């Protein structure tokens, strides 16, 4: 039977270098560590007055965002510019595709513009993989989020943040709280944490917000907040979208906050030095209260800074992998 190659084969050159960044699954630990180490170099570039390096000068990066997102798109744009690349933003919502042009046709048209990188966000799981399989050779695809499947750059910047504050992943207990069912961020985070050697990864959510067979992802399941938080070193909150109330998954935001909302009081159960993270944007008073979001344990603002460096790392590694000529 015709099968698809494992995602590692699509993402890596035969020599094991990154050429597309689509998902965390099947990537070796050494590669994830290389991304973090490369990002460290770019963090220091961000501290200079001249924040650019010439690595991608002459290259073009195209932002293909089928789902609106100002924050993530801006971060990718900044990352590309700091690498001295030219950036194109395709406003898909108002372009031909919404009028029925197929994804593939649109891709062919864009390829004529000789881009080197596509940063893609799409509502369908597997969209980034599909594009990577059909794009002309030597174009790197970076997944900025596909459906519920993966958001690998977000996961890597979260890993960078954890490594920055905790020194490493050994012995770490990480709790992910919230809508795991719909979260591509959570899936990528779980994969990354386990690959990088975290001791235990937990998911805390009501059953309606947990996917089928979630243990198969490698996480330990809790449906109650307090036991789930006990002794956790890192607490990662997920965003709860308003639509979930409409689909009969939750009665109200209020009830969600009462049962799963994070605040200082509940964090008592976690490790005294536990840090609190959130991929943003936050719903204050729903997943997390303001006191905690703005307090000492929160590293949320730093996540943003690290995000630019991590994306610079991924973009430069992918372009270099594509150019290496390994087929």
């Amino acid at each position, binding site marked *: 039977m015709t099968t698809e190659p494992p995602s590692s084969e699509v993402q890596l050159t035969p020599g094991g270098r990154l050429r597309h960044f689509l998902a965390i699954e099947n990537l070796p630990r050494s590669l994830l560590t290389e991304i973090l180490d490369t990002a460290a170099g770019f963090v220091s570039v961000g501290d200079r007055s001249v924040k650019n390096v010439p690595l991608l000068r002459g290259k073009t990066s195209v932002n293909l965002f089928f789902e609106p997102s100002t924050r993530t798109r801006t971060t990718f744009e900044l990352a590309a510019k700091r690498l001295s690349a030219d950036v194109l933003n395709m406003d898909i919502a108002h372009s031909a595709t919404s009028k029925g042009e197929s994804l*593939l046709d649109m891709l062919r048209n864009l390829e004529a513009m000789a881009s080197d990188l596509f940063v893609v966000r799409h509502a369908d799981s*597997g969209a980034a993989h599909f594009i990577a399989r059909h794009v002309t050779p030597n174009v790197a695809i970076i997944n900025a989020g596909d459906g*519920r499947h993966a958001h690998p750059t977000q996961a890597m910047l979260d890993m960078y943040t954890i490594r920055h504050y905790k020194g490493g992943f050994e012995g770490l207990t990480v709790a992910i709280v919230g809508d795991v069912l719909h979260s591509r961020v959570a899936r990528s985070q779980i994969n990354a944490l386990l690959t990088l050697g975290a001791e235990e990864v937990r998911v805390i959510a009501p059953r309606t917000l947990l*996917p089928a*067979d979630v243990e198969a992802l490698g996480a330990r399941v809790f449906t109650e907040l307090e036991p789930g938080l006990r002794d956790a070193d890192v607490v990662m909150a997920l965003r709860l979208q308003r639509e979930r109330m409409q689909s009969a998954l939750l009665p109200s935001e209020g009830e969600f906050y009462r049962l799963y909302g994070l605040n200082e009081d509940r964090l008592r159960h976690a490790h005294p030095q536990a840090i609190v993270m959130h991929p943003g944007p936050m719903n204050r008073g729903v997943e997390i209260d303001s006191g905690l979001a703005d307090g000492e344990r929160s590293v949320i603002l730093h996540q943003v800074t690290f995000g630019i460096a991590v994306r610079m790392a991924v973009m430069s590694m992918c372009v270099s992998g594509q150019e290496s000529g390994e087929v």
Partner: protein
Amino acid sequence: MQPDAHLLIRKGRVLDPAAGRDEVADVLVENGRLSRIGASLDAPGAELIDAEGLWVLPGLVDGCIRLSEPGGACTGSIASETRAAAAGGITHLGGLPDTDPVMDNAAVVQLVYEQAEKAGFARILPMGALTHQLEGEHLAEMHTLHQAGCVAFTNAGYPTTDALVLKRCLEYAANFDLPVVFRPQEAALTGNGCAHDGRIATHLGLPGVPVDAETVAVARDLELVQATGVRAHFHQISAAASLRLLRDARERGLPVTADVSIHHLLLNEHALEGFNSLCHIQPPLRHDRDRQALLEAVADGTLDVICSQHTPLGSSARLAPLPETRPGISGLDTLLPLLLHLVERGELPLERALDAVTAAPARCLGRPAGRLEPGHAASLCLVDPEPRRIPGEDWLSAGRNSPWLETELPGVVRLTVCEGKVTWLSD
């Protein structure tokens, strides 16, 4: 089709599950009628076919296929698809009514018949719409459709959420003793799911179709079958849990038959790994436990029929991210080779396997087909079980959406005769 075949098929292994026959014998077809099966037959003037080492089977019956005409949802034409069927030893095809326009009036039935006759490759047995426009609100003109040639009625998997409407449809059908084919899938529980709601869907972030989307529908439909006494066939069972309900129903004496697609017997949810949209079908490929249970159910007869699930799609329907692709596999080219593959893997005994694609589906549709019965128009095929080939190299269906294109599979059809006419001949 002009029934005019005049053949003496010599020394083939004649396999006819309906008659319990498995023996080397000669088969004589005269003027399109199967006249005799016996040893050392003599027939001056008949074309001699040396069938030594080959199998003589009844023409295969594929329970439910999606029709390519009228309308454009499926690619190809009745001519191209029935030709693919003939090359696969298939002589009779049940045609679903989800055409465009919908087969809820006699004119569409007539069109389908005429196109099939004109092409002359296989017999299509049309299934009429259960409700007007398949919308699940008003009864279709079932009697008229029956007079026009429909052998059964179905809503083709489109939801009939109003249980009262469904009950009335079934009562009406039962009134004329017309069988109804159910494709059990509860619409709201299915949602926009495109994969089995299990670990693979979770890993890939694909919206899932839970088992209860099928069992809830099966349970409801069985209750209505009990209440109305209609003859019922359940099409495309995918979950082990549904089998329990079917077995219970049989024990209660309900007139219920069921089928499963060949793909659900060979593949499970892992086939979707890497976002393999070639394996995107409805109902989805489920856990391997379900697959095993389905195989056991075919072996013990709980699932009477194996079908191809034939849905030929053009490339634009497949070249998209998986959730956007249309579900379905183009199955006519590979029904028999996959069946033989299942048998050679020891997963199903040969006789039951052949019965599931010949006598059993004919019985469910209430048609005289799927058997080698002397005195009737001959519908048979000659199969060489030995050679292995790559189906993609001689693919005939207009739809190439199949995960089996590059897989080496056993069995080559040398000759197909449909209702007395030779529809396929190869060296």
